[in-house]
C-alpha cells in the first residue's frame, strides 16, 4: 500500500463523489452509497496492513493508517453508509446537494482520522466542519448560525493550540511535539481538548447540539453517530499520542489519574447528568435524542479523562456503541417523522403496532443506550463504571450511575410516547417504513448484538489500540471481561437468559389468548366509542415541577444573555452615528487631539 492509494481511496474518492453526486438528482444517494462502499471494502481488505508515511511538500505532513484510524473509520464508514441507504427513500429536497455535502464531510472525516500532523488535521477538520454547517443550513439558518459559532470557536481553540506547538518546535508533525516545555504542554493539551470537546458537545460547549440535531435525520445520524466521534478521536490522540501518558502524569496524579485528565472526567460526568435531566424534559423527539447524545458522550469523556486502560477501553467501546445506537435512533426517529410528518412525541402514539420492525430496531437501540446486558451497550458502561469505582471516585461515579437511571426515563418516553399507547385515528393507516430504511437500521443494529455475545472480538481491536498507545492492557477472553474488582461472563448470561426465557415461554404458551381491539379496555365502567387517551403529553410533569426552580438556570440562556449584552452594547455604540455633520466634525477634532497627545506621550 502506498501513500497515494491511501490518500486516493479514503479522501480523493469521496471528493470525486462529491462532484459527481451533485448532478445525480434523485439517484444521488445511490452514488453516495457506492462512494462509501468502496472505502468500506478497502477498510476490510487493508485490516492489519498498517503503515505510516511522512512526506515533505514544503512542510512535513504525515498520513498514518493504524488500528486507531481503522477503528474510527469503521464506525464512520458504516454510519454514513446506513445514512445514505436511509436517504435513498427519504425523499429529501435537493438530494444531489445533500449527498454531495455528506461525501465532502466524509472525506474531511477520513482526512482527520488519517492525518498525524496539525496542518492536514486543521484543513480536513475545517472541510468536515463546513460541510456540516452547510448541511444544517439546509433546514434552518438560525440553527446553522448557532452551529457555526461553536464550530468557529472550536477552530480558534485548535489553531491556538497548534500555534503554540509550532512556535516551540517549528514543525507540524505530532511526533515532533515531544520536546515542549511543561507550561506549553498545559496550554496545548487544554486548548486541543476543548477544541475537540466542542464536537463532542461536552458541557458547557454543548448548546449548538440540540439545534443542529434538529436537521434532516439521515444527516443528523451521521453528525451524531459519525462526526461527533472525531471529537473523541481528537481528544484520545491529544492525550495519549501527542502528549502521551508520561507527559499527562508529569502534571501530578490523583490516585493514579493525571490531574490533567481528572477535571475533564468530572466535566464529562456533569455533562452526562445534565444532558440526561434535560433529555427527560423534552417533548420534541429530535431534541430529546440530542440531549441524550450530549449525555451519552459525557460518559466517553469520563473514560478518556480517567486514562486507565479499563477507562480508555471503555470510552472507545462506548464511542463505538454510541456511533451505532444513536444513529440508529436518529434513523428510527427519521422513519417515524417520514411517515407521520410530526416531531412531537405527544402527537404520536401506537406506531409500534403499525411499524413493528422500526419499533424492534429502535427498542434494541434503546436497550443499548440504557445499558441492558443483552446489548453491547452494557459492557462499555460497565467498563467505565468499574474504572471509576476501582479508583474510588465518589463524585464522578454517583453522577454517572444516577444519569444512567435517568436514561431509562427518557428511553421509556420515546418508547411509550411514539410506539406504544393508543394509536390515534389519523395514524390508523400508517405503513411500515420503506425497506431501505429498515435495512439501514438493521445494519446498525447488528454490531450491538454481536459484540454483546462476543465482546472479545471487539476487545481485540481496543486492546490493540491501547497497547499501541502505551496505555496498558485489558483483561478479557472471548466471552468474559474483568476489572481488578469484578468481572462478568456474557456466555453464561446469554445461555441462562435464553433458557429462562424458554421457561417463561412454555408457561405462556400453555393457554391460548384472544386478541381484542385497542379500545376494548378497562375504563372504570365508562364506555366512550372514541376518545383520545394517549397519556404522553407532558409525561414527566411531576419531575419537571420538582426540578422547576433548578431548570431556570440554563447554559443556553446564559450564552443568549451574553450575546444580548453585546448586541445592546453595539446598539449604544451605533448611536454615535447621529447623521449630523457637526457631530462628525467634533469627533474628528477629538480624535485629532487624542492622536497628538498619544503621539507626544509616546515620543
Amino acid at each position, binding site marked *: 500500500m502506498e501513500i497515494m492509494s491511501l490518500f486516493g481511496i479514503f479522501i480523493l474518492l469521496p471528493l470525486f463523489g462529491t462532484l459527481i453526486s451533485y448532478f445525480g438528482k434523485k439517484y444521488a444517494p445511490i452514488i453516495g452509497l457506492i462512494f462509501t462502499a468502496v472505502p468500506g471494502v478497502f477498510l476490510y481488505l487493508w485490516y492489519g496492513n498498517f503503515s505510516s508515511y511522512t512526506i515533505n511538500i514544503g512542510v512535513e505532513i504525515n498520513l498514518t493508517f493504524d488500528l486507531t484510524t481503522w477503528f474510527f473509520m469503521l464506525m464512520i464508514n458504516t454510519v454514513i453508509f446506513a445514512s445514505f441507504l436511509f436517504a435513498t427513500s427519504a425523499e429529501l429536497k435537493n438530494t444531489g446537494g445533500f449527498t454531495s455535502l455528506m461525501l465532502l464531510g466524509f472525506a474531511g472525516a477520513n482526512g482527520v482520522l488519517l492525518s498525524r500532523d496539525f496542518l492536514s488535521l486543521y484543513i480536513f477538520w475545517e472541510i468536515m466542519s463546513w460541510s456540516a454547517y452547510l448541511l444544517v443550513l439546509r433546514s434552518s439558518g438560525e440553527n446553522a448560525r448557532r452551529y457555526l459559532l461553536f464550530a468557529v470557536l472550536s477552530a480558534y481553540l485548535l489553531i491556538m493550540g497548534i500555534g503554540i506547538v509550532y512556535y516551540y518546535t517549528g514543525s507540524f508533525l505530532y511526533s515532533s511535539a515531544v520536546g515542549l516545555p511543561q507550561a506549553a504542554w498545559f496550554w496545548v493539551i487544554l486548548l486541543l481538548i476543548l477544541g475537540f470537546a466542542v464536537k463532542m458537545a461536552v458541557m458547557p460547549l454543548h448548546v449548538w447540539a440540540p439545534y443542529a440535531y434538529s436537521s434532516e435525520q439521515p444527516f443528523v445520524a451521521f453528525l451524531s453517530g459519525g462526526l461527533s466521534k472525531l471529537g473523541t478521536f481528537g481528544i484520545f490522540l491529544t492525550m495519549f499520542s501527542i502528549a502521551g501518558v508520561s507527559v499527562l502524569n508529569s502534571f501530578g496524579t490523583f490516585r493514579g489519574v493525571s490531574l490533567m485528565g481528572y477535571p475533564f472526567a468530572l466535566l464529562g460526568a456533569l455533562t452526562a447528568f445534565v444532558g440526561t435531566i434535560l433529555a427527560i424534559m423534552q417533548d420534541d423527539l429530535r431534541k430529546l435524542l440530542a440531549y441524550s447524545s450530549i449525555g451519552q458522550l459525557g460518559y466517553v469523556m469520563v473514560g478518556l479523562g480517567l486514562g486507565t486502560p479499563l477507562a480508555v477501553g471503555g470510552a472507545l467501546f462506548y464511542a463505538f456503541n454510541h456511533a451505532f445506537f444513536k444513529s440508529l435512533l436518529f434513523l428510527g426517529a427519521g422513519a417515524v417523522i417520514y411517515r407521520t410528518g410530526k416531531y412531537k412525541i405527544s402527537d404520536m402514539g*401506537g406506531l409500534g*403496532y403499525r411499524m*413493528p420492525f422500526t419499533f424492534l430496531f429502535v427498542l434494541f437501540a434503546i436497550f443499548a443506550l*440504557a445499558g*441492558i*446486558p*443483552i446489548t453491547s451497550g*452494557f459492557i462499555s458502561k*460497565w467498563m467505565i463504571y*468499574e474504572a471509576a*469505582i476501582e479508583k*474510588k471516585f*465518589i463524585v464522578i461515579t*454517583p453522577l454517572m*450511575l*444516577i444519569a444512567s*437511571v435517568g436514561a*431509562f*426515563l427518557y428511553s*421509556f418516553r420515546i418508547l*411509550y410516547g411514539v410506539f*406504544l*399507547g*393508543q*394509536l390515534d385515528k389519523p395514524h390508523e393507516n400508517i405503513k411500515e417504513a420503506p425497506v431501505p430504511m429498515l435495512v439501514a437500521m438493521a445494519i446498525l443494529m447488528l454490531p450491538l448484538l454481536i459484540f454483546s455475545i462476543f465482546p472479545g472480538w471487539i476487545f481485540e481491536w481496543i486492546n490493540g489500540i491501547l497497547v499501541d498507545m502505551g496505555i496498558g492492557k485489558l483483561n478479557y477472553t472471548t466471552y*468474559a471481561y*474483568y*476489572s481488578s*474488582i*469484578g*468481572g*462478568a461472563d456474557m456466555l*453464561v*448470561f446469554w445461555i*441462562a*437468559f435464553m433458557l*429462562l*426465557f424458554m421457561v*417463561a*415461554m412454555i*408457561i*405462556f404458551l400453555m*393457554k391460548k*389468548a*384472544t*386478541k*381484542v381491539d*385497542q379500545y376494548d*379496555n*378497562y375504563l372504570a365502567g365508562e364506555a366512550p366509542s372514541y376518545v383520545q*387517551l*394517549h*397519556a*404522553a403529553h407532558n*409525561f*414527566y410533569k*411531576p*419531575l419537571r*415541577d*420538582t426540578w422547576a426552580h433548578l431548570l431556570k438556570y440554563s447554559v443556553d440562556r446564559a450564552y443568549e444573555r451574553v450575546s444580548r449584552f453585546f448586541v445592546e452594547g453595539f446598539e449604544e455604540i451605533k448611536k454615535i452615528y447621529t447623521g449630523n455633520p457637526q457631530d462628525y466634525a467634533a469627533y474628528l477634532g477629538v480624535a485629532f487631539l487624542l492622536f497628538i497627545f498619544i503621539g507626544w506621550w509616546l515620543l
Partner: protein
Amino acid sequence: MTDWIGILTQAGLTALYLFLAVVIGLLFLGIGRKITARIHNRVGPPVYQNFIDVGKLLAKKSNIRHNWIFDLAPLFGLAGVLLTLAYLPMGGYRLLSGEGDLIILLYIMVIPALGFALGAGASANPNAGVGVMRALTLMFSYEMPFLLVVLSLMIFYNTASLDVLLNKQMNYAWAIAVLPLSALAADMALQGMMMEKPFDIPTAPHEIASGPLVEFGGKYLGMLMLYSAASVIVETTLFVDLFLGGGIVLDPGTYGSVAYVVNYLVWLILIFIVWLIALFINAVFPRFRIEQAFKFYWKWPTIIAAIGLIQAYIMSVFLGVVP
C-alpha cells in the same frame, strides 16, 4: 471436554433454588396479606391464598391480549426476574454469577421491569402509561440513595463482586455493623423498590386502577403474580446480601453441605425479617404523591447515604481499614 455432569448438576440445583424462591415469594405474599389484615383488625385471607390465585389465573380458558408487544410483559417479566434470582447468592449459594458482579446484577434487575413496562404501555389504557411514568419516576427517586449505598459498600470492601463481598463480610463483619447509616438508607430505598406504602404510587389501586397491571388478566396476570412474588425475594435478598452477609453463618469450606442447609435457613429468616419491616411500615402508612416521594428520597435518604459514603471513603482511603 467440558465437565457435563458438573454443569448439569449446577443447572439442576439452580432450577431447584429458583423454584423454591418463587414458592417462598408466594408464601411471603400470603403471609403479608394475613399480617396486614391482622394489623387492620380484619380476618384476612388464608396464607396459601396466593397459590390458589396463581393456579386459577394460569388455568383460565379465556385470556385477552392486545398485540404482540403486550405479550412481552409476562415473558420478559418472568424470565428477567428468574435471571436476576439466578445471579443473586441465596443463602450463600451462588448460582450463575461466576464473578458475582454487582453492576451486572443491578442492570439485570432492570430487564423484567422494562419488559413489564413495555407490555403495560402496549395497551391503550392511559392508566398503564401513568402508572409506568410513576414507577420510573419512583425508580429515579430511590436509586439515588440506593446507588450511593452500593457505592459505599463497593468502596469500603474494595470490590464490585457480590461473591467477594459475601466472603469479606463472613470473615470481617457484616456491613450493617460497619456502615449502619448506609444500611438505614438502603432500607428506606428498599421500601420504594418493593413499592410498599408509602411508596405504592405506581400501582395505587384506588387512583389509577392498579396502574401498569390494569389491562392484564388470566395467564398474563398469573405470570405477573409469579413475577411479583419472585421480586419480593430479589429485593429482600439483595438487602440481606449487601448488609447481613447473605445469611452466611457457617463457612461451606469447613462444614460442607451442612453449611448450605444452615445458611439457607438463616437467609430465610433474615429475608423474612426484612420483609416484615417493610410490611409493618406498609400497614400503617398512607400514600405519598409521586413528587413528594421524589423530594423525600432525594433529601433524607440521600443525605444519610451520602454520610455513609463519606464514612466508607474516610475509613477506606484515610484510615486504611482493609476488610
